[in-house]
């Protein structure tokens, strides 16, 4: 019975000797599968023939930030840099609350206030939701940079909305 990892089952195929290196699933005759945690393992498409890492510590981590998930498995030397998504989400929430507050302060009828708030926020809502997952497995020397450019635009738009509202009610 073949396991999930095709190279592990190599030795059981057709009664071949342990030195048989043909994999029945992928026909790989290379004999060695790339292993990011093995310092002597060389990436098949590497430009550097002398690639040897002396610090192949196993690292597995899961980090969840708001709507993003980063999973790092069986890898080493992974560098993840991310901007402050949590700050961006908090700012967005604060702006929405501020707009709702101003509308409720100025319109006595709560149903009408609710409708006005929804109309205003719907206009500014940017539908593109940044919901991305990054999954890194069996990798080495990977740099990941995640930025929040889209949310910056949304924040600026909501700020303009709040300012326009305040101008209408003679605060500014």
């Amino acid at each position: 019975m073949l396991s999930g990892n095709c190279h592990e089952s190599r030795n059981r195929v057709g009664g071949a000797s342990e030195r048989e290196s043909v994999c029945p699933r992928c026909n790989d005759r290379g004999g060695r599968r790339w292993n990011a945690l093995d310092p002597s393992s060389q990436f098949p498409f590497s430009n550097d023939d002398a690639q040897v890492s002396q610090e192949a510590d196993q690292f597995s981590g899961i980090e969840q930030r708001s709507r993003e998930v980063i999973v790092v498995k069986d890898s080493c030397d992974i560098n993840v840099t991310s901007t402050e998504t949590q700050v961006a989400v908090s700012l967005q929430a604060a702006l929405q609350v501020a707009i709702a507050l101003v509308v409720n302060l100025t319109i006595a009828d709560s149903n009408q206030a609710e409708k006005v708030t929804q109309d205003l926020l719907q206009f500014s809502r940017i539908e593109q939701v940044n919901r991305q997952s990054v999954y890194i497995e069996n990798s080495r020397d990977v740099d990941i940079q995640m930025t929040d450019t889209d949310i910056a635009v949304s924040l600026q738009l909501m700020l303009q909305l709040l300012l326009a509202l305040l101008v209408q009610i003679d605060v500014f």
Partner: protein
Amino acid sequence: MGDLNNKLTELSRSLVGLHVKDVLNKNTKDNNNSKLRSLSDEEKEQLRKIFNDLQDQVNSFVKQTKQETEDTEAADNQAGRTRTTLRDLMQKKKNQEK
């Protein structure tokens, strides 16, 4: 580019202002009794303070995001790093084997 950016910002501000005015008018003219409540000076001052705080935080966040993007690009250029996709590497290896 900076001038264009300013013009676009001004345009966006005008459009947003127009939209807010329109929404408020639509929702307050149906019922004659419902009109915008006047705020006291103290309330107005508080709202001004809240807005200024939010504006500072948003500007600081946008500036930080922009700075980080620029720093990364500068670091990449300095290291002389070129983007090489897996597809490029595979093609190169195929060419070498030929």
